[in-house]
């Protein structure tokens, strides 16, 4: 936060990088609800461990083994994405929608962006893939 204040004081153009193809998505509703939303996400994500021990998931394990497990640039693989999809589909409609809507920014980023908005600091939304091409 100190760095951000410094950047604002220097008149820098703040940039927020989003997941590939998800610019503008995954923000919390409001700064005041950021904590509550974080706890809810945390509680739902915590169910994944149990899901992966469930009979339903274990029955699919052999099939899932055929999927690529090596990660690409976003640290995900065919396998991890499929497991996440299956986990989301095992949730209630309400929880699934909530989790899907929170895709686009990392956990700490949601808080960072909420804080930027609370402070009224203007920022540019950028797709992380544009960084990969530039560098």
């Amino acid at each position, binding site marked *: *936060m100190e*760095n*951000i204040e*410094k*950047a604002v004081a*220097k*008149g*820098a*153009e*703040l*940039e*927020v*990088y*989003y*997941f590939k193809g998800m610019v503008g998505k995954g923000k919390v509703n409001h*700064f*005041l609800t*950021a*904590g*509550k939303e974080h*706890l809810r996400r945390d509680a739902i994500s915590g169910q994944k461990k149990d899901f992966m021990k469930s*009979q*339903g*998931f274990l*029955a*699919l394990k052999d*099939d899932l083994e*055929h*999927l*690529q497990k*090596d*990660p*690409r*640039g*976003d*640290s*995900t*693989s*065919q396998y991890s*994405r499929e497991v996440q*999809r*299956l986990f989301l*589909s*095992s949730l209630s409609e309400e929880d699934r929608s909530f989790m899907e809507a929170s895709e686009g*920014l*990392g*956990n*700490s*980023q949601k*808080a960072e*962006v*909420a*804080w*930027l908005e609370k402070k009224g600091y203007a*920022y*540019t939304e950028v797709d*992380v893939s544009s*960084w*990969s091409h530039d*560098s």
Partner: protein
Amino acid sequence: MAMELRGSMVSPLVTGRVQVTGYQKLVQDAEGSEEPGSAHESDAKRHAEKSQAGSVVLENDLKAAIEVKFSGEVSVIYPSDHKFFDTTSEMVMQVSLRDDASISGTCLVFIGLSSLRASESFGSFGIEVAEFLQKEQLEVDRERELQQERKESMNHVIEEEIRAQDKTWCAALPILAFCGLLFSGLLVLCVSVEPQDWASALMLSLAVMLMFYCMFGCCAGTFVGLQHLASQAASHFATARFLAELGPLVWIFLGFLCLAAAAVRYIHAGFWWSALMPGLICYCASTFTCLGEDPAILRIGRDPPIASVFKRNAAERTIVFRGSVLEGGGPCVASWPGKYESAWDSLVQGSRRGYVSAAVVFLPEGSEHFGHHDPIPLAEGLEGSCWCVPLYGVGVPVVDKMDGKHRESCC
């Protein structure tokens, strides 16, 4: 048989929980399937029976999971798997790639059609999937290369740092060893002198304590350095490491013997109170060495080698990033998705070379300021002792996993 069942098991998970009962039955059927040797024969027989009964089998010969929509049902077929579908009339079967629903294809299924292949039967679907996979594989290969480069670069930095430490220890060791021996000699000398009166007893007692502490410090330093150098030269020699760890304890034990001898001598000379100081040190030190929950003597050979501790510290220092905001009004990275590790790495390198302005930070676990809470300024008018409360709903630091380390989120 088992493969067929698994193909259809996915459906309940994908389409919801309503089919749980049917799914459980499928699990039971799968568990009760026939002997492995007869599986292929049985599968072929079943295929023939199903074909006659008006079924079509779809084989996923692609290296990706596909989603199939047919007759109002949605199911998933994984690579090398297949699934039977009943064909009672002419119907369209739609397939799409699980990883990218925009890649899809259709096929008209009619009675009498016995088999379909994901790669061939749905127009350009197979080619599009192959292109997608090729692109994905290139990304995976590139990521692997970048990870390897990161690892090599990190190792290079660590080796440089270890070499610098080696030089420091090589210079300090002879001095420490000499001082250690000198203080040991002085300690023995002090112990051998008989106190004549209360003043000399007090002076000797203080001198014994002072010499012991000096000897202790030099001895510990000497052996930390020795152990470091020994583990660099021959990290696989467990015996050398064991001796290097046992050495200081033996040396310090001899120091304790001197203290005990001094205490006995003072008591014998009638100055029992002057024996209290060395006696107290002996008591505390022996408790630390031999007693307690995790006595030092039992930790020999069990603690991580000192070299690995140095390596870990060096590694942490190389990946700590506190951000660097450049002068001027150009773009400045204010928030970064931590899961893009290689891109993050290029950001850090760019920032360290002075051409990328970044306000983001990365503090691995164990680094300075990790886990420290940043208090909320009064002017913000918010509740909570630190930023973790309004942002994460808890009063503890929240971290994102990144590269096996942690990225400090708030404070």
